[in-house]
């Protein structure tokens, strides 16, 4: 991981200076946005396939188990192997990935036993796994990085603060051993408390311990003044490296296996018959989902991450019918969510609406005293922006949107009304039943209101399809042709 970070930094240093790079990585907003975008891109790509396969809620199940996987792996690492607590450790990712696959296998097994329906199995599995994880966290983990709050919302806002330092010049690693002249030694009485004696007592025994021994990276050494020349370092946020690699992996996965995934998602039976292995592909997809869920856990927590999997693909699904387009649109929506979400957390929606103004307005109008400054969770706000974009797609989608549907229905209703009226006139005009064609009583034959008939007739006259002559409604030649045309096309055509 460290070596990859170094490579990336060296690559970036070709284009920007070290200072600018550090400034960028030290900017909470930049890091949060990039991190959010990376999660959104990988989530949206995988989520697209989950959505198409009707497995959206599997991401829910996986994110819950992954939490348990992380907590158990974390406990094994810190308690049994005595490793330093590190949430970005690759081992956590491996463990949690395995846990994710285990969920899928387990729910399938429960379902196959036939004792419990699938929804109940999932509905029971989510909270149970989550409950066990929460109990373990509450009982055994006192580390700041893993508490109930971070489980809920993650810490995307402070991702910039957890960095690896990479040194490029004046790199001097300092190791202080207890024999080193710089070592600071403190003496502590080991049996004073047990015997209830003072340290001056002759029976007192002392242990000496070194307070500043250990290995110092160049950056740490400079900070505590162990070296004279400032090393040229770049501080790279760890979360970015993990999530960046996962995103590349995801993009590779959906590009290389594009054809196979497409086939298996739309026609699993055909894929099987053609010699692909849709089952294996499903598990590969689940592994990817688990990995991304783990990578994102630190940043957005284990519940909000589900939104990154479900909402952008759902919005894209309403906008297009093509898989390739969906795979492009969904990440864009997710990225937009990440970008504008940071602003929303600080009270500005797309730069158009300012929540502080709204709060002030509510306070003056209703005479309440809400806190005047909107300052909220970044990850939750990212999800909210995605939800707003989803609603926008729902309402305004050119083909499937609510507005488009309303317009289409209105047009169909109009066309139908026109055809019914013209058909009626045609039938009776042919055999000369003028009693049926009186303009002021025509609405009675359809059980319509007079106004409705007037509107329909006005429209037909404007289109030069009918004319009114001596209170009789008659088809024009043009209208005659139109009726004959649609009678040809309609299914109920009479000989």
């Amino acid at each position, binding site marked *: 991981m460290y070596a990859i970070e170094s490579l990336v930094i060296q690559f970036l240093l070709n284009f920007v200076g070290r200072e600018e790079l550090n400034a960028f990585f030290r900017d909470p907003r930049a890091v949060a946005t990039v991190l959010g975008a990376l999660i959104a891109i990988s989530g949206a790509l995988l989520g697209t396939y989950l959505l198409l396969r009707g497995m959206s809620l599997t991401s829910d199940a996986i994110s819950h188990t992954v939490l348990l996987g992380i907590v158990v792996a974390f406990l094994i690492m810190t308690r049994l192997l005595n490793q330093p607590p590190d949430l970005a450790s690759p081992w956590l990712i491996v463990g949690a990935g395995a846990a994710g696959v285990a969920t899928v296998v387990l729910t399938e097994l429960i379902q196959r036993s036939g004792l419990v329906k699938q929804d109940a199995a999932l*509905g029971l599995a989510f909270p149970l796994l989550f409950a066990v994880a929460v109990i373990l966290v*509450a009982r055994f983990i006192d580390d700041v990085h893993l508490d109930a709050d971070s489980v809920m919302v993650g810490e995307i806002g402070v991702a910039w603060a957890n960095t690896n330092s990479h040194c490029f010049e004046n790199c001097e690693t300092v190791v202080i051993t207890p024999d080193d002249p710089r070592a600071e030694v403190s003496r502590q009485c080991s049996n004073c408390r047990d015997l209830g004696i003072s340290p001056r007592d002759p029976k007192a025994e002392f242990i000496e311990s070194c307070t500043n021994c250990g290995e110092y990276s160049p950056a740490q050494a400079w900070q505590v003044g162990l070296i004279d020349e400032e090393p040229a370092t770049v501080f790279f946020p760890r979360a970015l490296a993990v999530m960046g690699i996962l995103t590349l992996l995801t993009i590779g996965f959906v590009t290389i296996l594009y054809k196979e995934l497409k086939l298996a998602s739309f026609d699993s039976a055909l894929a099987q018959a053609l010699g692909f292995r849709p089952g294996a592909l499903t598990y590969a997809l689940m592994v990817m989902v688990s990995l991304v869920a783990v990578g994102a856990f630190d940043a957005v927590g284990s519940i909000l991450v589900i939104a990154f999997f479900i*909402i952008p693909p759902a919005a894209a699904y309403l906008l297009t019918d093509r898989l390739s387009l969906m795979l492009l649109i969904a990440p864009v929506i997710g990225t937009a969510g990440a970008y504008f979400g940071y602003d929303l957390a600080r009270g500005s929606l797309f730069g158009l609406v300012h929540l502080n103004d709204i709060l002030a307005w509510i306070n003056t109008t209703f005479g309440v005293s809400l*806190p005047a400054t909107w300052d*909220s969770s970044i990850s939750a706000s990212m999800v909210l922006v995605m939800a707003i974009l989803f609603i926008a797609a*729902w309402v305004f989608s050119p083909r499937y949107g609510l507005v488009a549907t309303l317009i289409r229905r209105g047009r169909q209703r109009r066309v139908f009304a026109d055809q019914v009226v013209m058909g009626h006139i045609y039938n009776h005009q042919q055999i000369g039943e003028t009693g049926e064609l009186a303009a002021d009583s025509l609405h009675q034959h359809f059980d319509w209101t007079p106004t409705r008939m007037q509107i329909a007739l006005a429209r037909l006259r404007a289109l030069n399809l009918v004319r009114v002559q001596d209170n009789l409604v008659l088809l024009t030649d043009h209208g005659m042709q139109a009726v004959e045309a649609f009678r040809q096309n309609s299914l109920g055509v009479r000989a």
Partner: protein
Amino acid sequence: MPQNPTEDRSVWLVIGVMAALALLFVPFSQIVLGVNYDYTVRTVALGGALLGVVSGVLGCFAVLRRQSLLGDALSHAALPGVAIAFLVAGRELGVLLIGAGVASWVGVQFIQAITRTTRLKQDAAMGITLTTWFALGIALLAYIQASGNASQAGLNTFIFGQAAAIVESDVIMIAVVGAVVFITLGLLWKEFKLITFDPEFAGANGFHITVLQTLLLTLIVIAIVLGLQLAGVILMVGMLIAPGIAARQWTHRLGQMVLLSAVFGAFAGGVGAIISAVDTDVPTGPTIIVVAFSVVVISLGFAPGRGLLWTLLRARQDRRRFAAQNVLRDIYLYNLSHDDPDIVVPQQFLVDLRGSIVRTGLTALEHNGAVVRVNGGWRLTGAGLQAAEADAHNQQLWDLYRVYGDELKLPLVAEDRQKDIRALLPEHAIERLEDLREGAA
């Protein structure tokens, strides 16, 4: 699965035993775990048990109507309601719960609007709603928290639940609301039963399904909202459905299931609340879920009839009986073909005929005294011969029944050659078959 009055009664017995065991937890915890039932713990335990009853009863319907995941979405969706209610009215439990209910309710409508007007499936719609509402709730809570409002301290308990927050007035409110819910349920019992098991039939008979479904869903929302304080928004669904799933394993009747579920719910809620009230490090919601899940595991494993243990035992028994029957038949045929009832059949011959299952069959037969081992082979005993002849007779009758049953207009029974046909058909039918058999011989 066949039902008869005896089985019904035995389930009532089970319910009684469960309820007694649940009650026994109180002295057990006092004596063994050393729990001191002071005023606080009593209140908390009572509140937990009551909530368990309410959610257990309504959870049955969620489980049977396959709405477990909807319950999950609904409980997550309650969070923004709590936050908004707090902003409007402060920390007033009644108002907070009403806010939660309204938010869940709007969530349901949102899910239904998505599935009705778009081509997205229900699972995606639930996922969208669940995360959006939850994010809104988290954002509002973060806003309230950032503003440093001192009295918000209790609000976080809605996420993971905090039993210690329950006071006496809450218990009274839970009891009153619970009573209203149960009265509604009692009055509309028949209707709810019908729309749970056969909504089309209910609709065809002129019941207003939409109204009834909405009402039932509202009751479920009420149960969820009441339980939020105890179990929290994330885990509430477990408290809702786990007792129902467990109860489902013990019985096939809705009334019994609901009662049993209420007992299980009370147990899980009460025990979970007590544990977390005694050890405040452990959040209440997770504890309740773990207790409830243990009840589910026990039910899945040991419930009579349906449980995995009984299924395994039954499968083993069936295999043994089947093997014994087949081996007996093989030996009998061997005897017939050699025209010698006392002949010794070499074991290897039987194994070659049927494979390794022969050993299972021979063990069972030897145990029954139907065969004896004679240096490397097997010989039928008198009882064994009788049994083999009776079996052959039975099979012949079955054969005849299969061929001539329709022609002779004999009563229709399912063909099960493991069973004695004489026990299944009336006497006159057996007589006809016996006549045919003698005619054939």
